[in-house]
């Protein structure tokens, strides 16, 4: 299709690249500009906490492939600082601005830094979100530090702890919640994750926070002081306390954008502050808060790789289609993690649950599927080294099957023991939730109101 329509994509990572790729694949041949604050071509982030740190690939290999010739104008190494919807232009950090007819916002998240700047500036304190982060941490781990501290046992923190053990490094993990991954998987399954860590020699300390990071006077990290009054000598501290959505630049744009993301409809069209849907502003990836019919149409933001891809493709499609030809993004959420040689896969939203049952396999062998339910409906399933069964559970989730499951399966734990899924209040976790449900998580007792940007 021959087009004069100017498309600008703000955010040059997975969602931005895939949207550009999909636009071209669908035949869009108009001018396309991609803005990114990092100096690199779009790269893949999951390897940064796994394959890169294990030496399986150098960080620069993480560059993502495109399936098409993008023929795009790249504005890399410069952040977008404002979105002007009066004049339909994106204002850049270098003072330049890029006009558009349609814009896609894919600015994603950044790592939540250690809150005290004088401590986070110490040499030896790391976060892992970007290619540069991963490169620096890899160099430091290769130098053979005496002891590594990982602060926060979400997926990133747990994966880094796993890498450290595999590299033979001694590592302590602190987690304010009762277990690793508990915020994503609930207490029953998180207990398995805790066992995995301890079996692999991780010094795991739950219910503990880090009160203070201490330098050696030369600007190097030397010691961590914990909330229980003890101290640890450490050379490396990896801060893995979740992320912050990159939405500040949208303040004043008139969009419904805030710390929880940018609200949009099922077709990735952004809402404005008055709850009206825009027709030329689209959102995809970690910053998108989108209603999902399986979860009572709550606005959900998902920091999942597959979500970025799915929304990017829907957004691209809807940017160049009108009316009834537009598509909704209805994928069942899914994610994976690789740690301690176990493949953890999830479909649905395990946090959207009140009960859980180990439906197949053996927890002791760490080969099992756990099915999650909420008020009598199956809402999620998590597999540890049992991924081939998840398509079945995806089908059950899609068809709103009953929970607990009312049928027999092969290799079942007999009898099924239905337990509380033990979801903690997200407020108590060290690691931020990777799924943020606006409104009510089953266990969430309050809703936080944020003042709207003026």
């Amino acid at each position, binding site marked *: 299709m021959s087009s004069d329509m100017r498309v600008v994509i703000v955010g040059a990572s997975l969602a931005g690249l895939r949207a550009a790729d999909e636009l071209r694949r669908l035949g869009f041949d108009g001018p396309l500009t991609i803005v990114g604050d990092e100096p690199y071509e779009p790269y893949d982030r999951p390897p940064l906490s*796994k*394959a890169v740190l294990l030496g*399986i690939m*150098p960080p620069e*290999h993480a560059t993502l492939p495109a399936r098409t010739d993008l023929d795009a104008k790249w504005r890399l190494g410069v952040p977008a600082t404002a979105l002007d919807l009066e004049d339909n232009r994106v204002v850049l950090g270098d003072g330049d601005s890029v006009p558009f007819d349609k814009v896609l916002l894919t600015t994603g998240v950044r790592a939540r830094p250690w809150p005290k700047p004088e401590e986070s500036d110490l040499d030896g304190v790391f976060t892992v979100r970007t290619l540069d982060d991963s490169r620096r941490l890899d160099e430091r781990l290769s130098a053979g530090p005496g002891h590594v501290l990982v602060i926060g046992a979400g997926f990133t923190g747990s994966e880094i702890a796993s890498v450290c053990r595999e590299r033979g490094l001694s590592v302590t993990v602190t987690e304010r919640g009762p277990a690793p991954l508990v915020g994503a998987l609930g207490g029953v399954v998180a207990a398995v994750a805790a066992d995995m860590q301890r079996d692999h020699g991780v010094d795991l300390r739950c219910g503990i926070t880090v009160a203070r990071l201490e330098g050696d006077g030369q600007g190097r990290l030397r010691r961590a002081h914990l909330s229980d009054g003890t101290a640890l000598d450490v050379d490396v501290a990896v801060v893995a306390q979740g992320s912050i959505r990159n939405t500040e630049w949208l303040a004043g744009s008139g969009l419904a954008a805030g710390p929880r993301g940018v609200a949009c409809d099922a077709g990735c069209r952004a809402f404005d502050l008055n709850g009206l849907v825009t027709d030329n502003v689209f959102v995809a990836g970690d910053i998108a808060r989108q209603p999902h019919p399986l979860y009572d149409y709550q606005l959900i933001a998902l920091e999942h*790789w597959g979500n970025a891809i799915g929304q990017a493709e829907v957004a691209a499609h809807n940017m160049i289609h009108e009316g009834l030809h537009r598509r909704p993004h209805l994928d069942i959420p899914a994610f994976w993690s*690789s740690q301690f040689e176990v*493949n953890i896969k999830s479909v649905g939203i395990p946090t959207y649950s009140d009960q859980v049952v180990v439906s197949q396999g053996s927890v002791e062998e760490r*080969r099992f599927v756990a099915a999650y339910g909420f008020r009598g409906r199956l809402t999620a399933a998590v597999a540890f*080294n049992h991924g081939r069964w998840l398509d079945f559970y995806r089908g059950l989730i899609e068809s709103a099957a009953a929970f607990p499951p009312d049928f027999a399966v092969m290799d079942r734990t007999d009898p099924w023991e239905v337990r509380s899924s033990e979801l903690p209040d997200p407020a108590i976790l060290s690691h931020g939730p990777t799924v943020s449900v606006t409104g009510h998580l089953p266990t969430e007792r309050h809703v936080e109101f944020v003042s709207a940007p003026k």
Partner: protein
Amino acid sequence: MMDVKLVVDLNRCQGYAQCVFLAPHVFTLHGEESLLYDAGPDDGERERVSQAAAACPVQAITTDIRPQSHEQ
């Protein structure tokens, strides 16, 4: 020649490991089911990566290797 670029959709991946069998220097199984890989192997792996991508039973491997277009 340029390095190959690839990415695997690990939500789709079910650990059939066809890619590991066919290109063992690029893909590796970590434990029984976790797939890790070098996303930018050098050009010498191009043929094996093509075979791996073609063989993936769940079509989870995307590369920047362009297949031969249809001829007239």
